[in-house]
């Protein structure tokens, strides 16, 4: 029997569907806000108060409470127990390599006292009214669902215990659930979960004070990381199913030729040659969406065929004339110069204390530097892919998506069907990194099925499509100026941050960064400097800007942490000591006092900025890496530290640069304080992966535009770090949380930002050469 069938949404007290603040980085919040009231980040309002443009709230919500559809902790929704004792646990967050399909069900199983070997995991379709928020992004899954999933497991266990006590007619205090059975200690009797499930499902769900969670010392799985990846065996044997792998009887295959320039349209096209090719079935035009594009498809010409190869051949044979539209002159070289000009003039002040200009005037030493980071593409190894079919007014989709509920809402809108006629099945994701939070490709597949009278159509994005039409990481120019006094103490800090904003993808381009972007390590630097000013000059967007793993933290950390190293050198001091002094003594800071009104959507009371924790990761990583040790010629150590996603990270990179200028990375040490560690083994793998992604973007990553179009076609031009160039050794140092009930930090993203600056600082230590423009590419090579 399935107790999961018995859910009653009416009795579920946990659905809080009201709108959230614009400041929450939820992708959905954007479209909701824009749909309701247009672009609400009013230009001209003081930016620090932009959050207040959302409806005023008597009790502001934070964390999971503030996300669309909040959270659900009803065991009848998440757990089913079969008569044979098999425990089925629903995972409602998307698996994209972070291990969430293992970690969250493991939390349920632990509290439930389920034997992991008898647990099965099923993936929830997009349905947030039932499961709570499903936007798998922002390093939030474990942070927001650790406690709800504990309650799910604990409540289910208590229901089983109550059923056993009733069965034996003994007081419930005499029974205890242990590893898939309930024991009655006085009599020595035992009964399995499978036998109890039916009766247990009829009992009231314990909540509130009636709920008894385990003490941390009673955890079997949580914090141990011994479970192994649930999907591991399927993965290594080729049986894991990703979005691109969907197989349905009668499946058709499609690729789309999209406008090369954002906002472009098909002027005319000739499909006659394509239609003559073997396997090509049909060519259809998809409507283009007026800008801002938001999550809507870009339009173009689709080729539908008997297999993917025939569809690609058909697309190659299309003759299309494009009307390129307003962004046809976007050119990365020109744009960089524009950003430099903007950065060299005053911009909107977003935080200020003291008198920076006077302090700079009076400084014994002044420094300035500009740091450039180009656009990046997430380039998950599995490109976007989605399959749809429409049968009798019901649309079913199989997709690798980070945002299944959002995909559902959009498909409903485009097909003009009610939302409950749309089912989004979530497959495994072959990487996401933010790209698959944006479900334009899911909508495309639904439109293609519609064009084929509802037949199942699988849409595949080729790698060229992925690199040409992603929602790119922003491009940025960060300009910093600082003044030191005669003792080398920093007395002035001026940071101008110039970068087109993600908000431009969703509304009229404000040309300013939003609080969520500024709160990613530019406005909220916890430095002890009397005179400090942060400015945000304008920058217009000419492509779809979107989320890339760790988002604006990447350029901000790159600039800030490289510049601090430059300041230390100018002051003649050790970088580590200088950085610790700049951070100052251990203290707890209200992020509002740093101008950060966003704070990752979390409560400033629960999640203050804790400089003690930041100091500790720096002290740990420098100790473990042997900071200050003597190195051979051409070798160097570089340090960087960054706080993001409520997690504290410090990194020491060791580089070796040979006589020809060839760079290698023998070792990276990473110290991380992310609060309590639910699955330390997967935390380590996420940190290793973040490190390599950081190295990859620092050494190779660049998407550039010419005549409005992306210049990189495939992995030969958009290089990803390979095994021979990856760090040879990555040592992860996890700092244990003081207590298991202290607040959790994010894990998936926060190790990316400090890698590039630590690497560049190490290169300086090894060679004396400052890298201020990424990617490094050939900059070190001697001719």
């Amino acid at each position, binding site marked *: 029997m399935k107790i999961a069938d018995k859910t009653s949404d009416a009795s579920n007290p946990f659905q809080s569907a009201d709108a959230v603040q614009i400041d929450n980085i939820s992708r959905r919040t954007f479209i909701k806000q824009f749909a309701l009231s247009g672009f609400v980040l009013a230009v001209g309002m003081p930016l620090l108060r932009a959050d207040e443009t959302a409806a005023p709230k008597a009790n502001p919500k934070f964390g999971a409470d503030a996300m669309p559809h909040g959270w659900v902790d009803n065991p009848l929704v998440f757990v089913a127990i079969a008569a044979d004792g098999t425990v089925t646990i629903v995972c409602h967050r998307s*698996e994209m390599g972070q291990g969430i399909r293992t970690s969250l069900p493991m939390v349920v199983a632990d509290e439930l006292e389920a034997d992991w070997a008898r647990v099965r995991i099923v993936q929830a379709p997009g349905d947030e009214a039932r499961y709570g928020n499903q936007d798998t992004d922002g390093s939030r899954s474990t942070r927001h669902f650790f406690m709800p999933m504990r309650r799910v497991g604990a409540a289910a266990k208590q229901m089983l215990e109550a059923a056993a006590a009733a069965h034996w007619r003994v007081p419930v205090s005499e029974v205890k659930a242990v590893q898939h059975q309930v024991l009655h200690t006085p009599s020595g009797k035992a009964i399995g979960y499978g036998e109890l499930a039916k009766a247990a499902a009829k009992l009231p769900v314990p909540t509130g004070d009636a709920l008894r969670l385990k003490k941390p010392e009673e955890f079997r799985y949580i914090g141990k990381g011994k479970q192994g990846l649930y999907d591991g065996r399927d*993965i290594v044997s080729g049986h894991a199913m990703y979005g691109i792998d969907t197989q349905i009887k009668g499946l058709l295959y499609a690729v789309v030729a999209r406008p090369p320039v954002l906002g472009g349209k098909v002027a005319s096209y000739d499909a006659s040659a394509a239609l003559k090719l073997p396997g090509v079935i049909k060519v259809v035009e998809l409507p283009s969406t007026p800008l801002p594009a938001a999550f809507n498809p870009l339009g173009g010409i689709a080729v539908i065929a008997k297999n993917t*190869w*025939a569809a690609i051949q058909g697309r190659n044979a299309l003759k299309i004339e494009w009307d390129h539209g307003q962004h046809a002159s976007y050119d990365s070289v020109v744009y960089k110069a524009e950003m430099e000009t903007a950065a060299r003039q005053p911009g909107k002040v977003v935080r200020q204390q003291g008198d920076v200009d006077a302090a700079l005037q009076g400084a014994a030493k002044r420094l300035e530097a500009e740091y450039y980071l180009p656009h990046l593409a997430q380039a998950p*190894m*599995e490109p976007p892919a989605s399959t749809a079919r429409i049968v009798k007014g019901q649309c079913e989709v199989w997709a690798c998506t980070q945002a299944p509920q959002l995909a559902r809402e959009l498909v409903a809108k485009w097909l003009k069907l009610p939302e409950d006629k749309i089912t989004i099945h979530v497959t495994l994701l*072959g990487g996401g990194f933010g790209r698959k939070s944006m479900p334009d490709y899911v909508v495309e597949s639904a439109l293609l099925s519609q064009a084929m009278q509802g037949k199942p159509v699988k849409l595949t994005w080729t790698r060229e499509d992925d690199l040409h039409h992603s929602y790119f990481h922003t491009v940025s120019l960060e300009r910093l100026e600082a003044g030191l006094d005669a003792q080398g103490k920093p007395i002035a800090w001026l940071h101008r941050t110039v970068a087109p904003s993600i908000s431009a993808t969703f509304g009229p381009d404000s040309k300013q960064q939003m609080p969520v972007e500024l709160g990613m390590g530019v406005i909220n630097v916890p430095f002890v400097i009397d005179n400090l000013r942060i400015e945000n000059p304008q920058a217009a967007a000419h492509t779809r800007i979107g989320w890339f793993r760790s988002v604006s933290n990447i350029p901000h950390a790159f600039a800030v942490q490289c510049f601090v190293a430059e300041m230390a050198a100018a002051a003649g001091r050790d970088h580590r000591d200088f950085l610790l002094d700049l951070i100052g003594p251990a203290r707890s800071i209200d992020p509002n006092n740093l101008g950060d009104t966003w704070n990752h959507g979390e409560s400033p009371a629960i999640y203050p900025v804790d400089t003690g924790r930041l100091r500790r990761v720096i002290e740990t990583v420098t100790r473990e890496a042997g900071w200050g040790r003597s190195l051979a010629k051409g070798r160097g150590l570089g340090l960087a530290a960054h706080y993001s996603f409520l997690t504290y990270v410090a990194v020491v990179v060791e580089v070796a640069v040979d006589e020809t200028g060839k760079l290698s990375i023998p070792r990276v040490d990473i110290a991380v304080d992310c609060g309590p560690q639910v699955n330390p083994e997967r935390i380590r793998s996420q940190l*290793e992966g973040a490190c390599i992604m950081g190295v990859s973007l620092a050494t190779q990553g660049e998407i550039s535009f010419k005549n409005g179009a992306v210049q990189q076609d495939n992995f030969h031009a958009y290089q990803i770090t390979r095994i021979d160039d990856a760090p040879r*050794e990555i040592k992860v140092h996890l700092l244990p949380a003081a207590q298991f009930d202290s607040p959790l930090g994010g894990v998936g993203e926060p190790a990316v930002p400090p890698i590039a600056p630590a690497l560049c600082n190490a290169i300086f230590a090894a060679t004396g050469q400052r890298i201020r423009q990424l990617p490094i590419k050939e900059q070190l090579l001697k001719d």
Partner: protein
Amino acid sequence: MITLNINGKRRKVDLPSDTPLLWVLRDQLGMTGTKFGCGMAVCGACMVHIDGEPTRACVTPISTLATKKIVTIEAMAQDETGKKVQESWLAQGVPQCGYCQSGQVMSATALLKNQPKPSDADIDKAMSGNLCRCGTYPRIRAAIKQAAGIGEVQA
């Protein structure tokens, strides 16, 4: 009509002879373990063994395969070396998203069949054609060493 020998079975394929093996496997035969990542021989996601040689299926037209033995990831559990690689992959917790891992396992298995005790340089050479966007390289290296019975596996 071309007859292919895939994992020891004869499969009839009625597609143009320039069709790459990758799409025959995935779309025609439903063998989706072999992945698409680039379509131009630069990522390794589509790695298969052809007469024992690691080969990229995305650029291998079926016209060249009539007399060859094709082995895919789906057969690795029945291969002595392949099985060992899979087990060490799981023991080291290599996969993250897992999408590249079919190709990684195929390349690693081919390596170990050729060189049962590979050096780091051998591993670099054999594995540098396989991209992993999740960054599982340190564990791939450790898992290959474990499968090869070479020490210094990281704790």
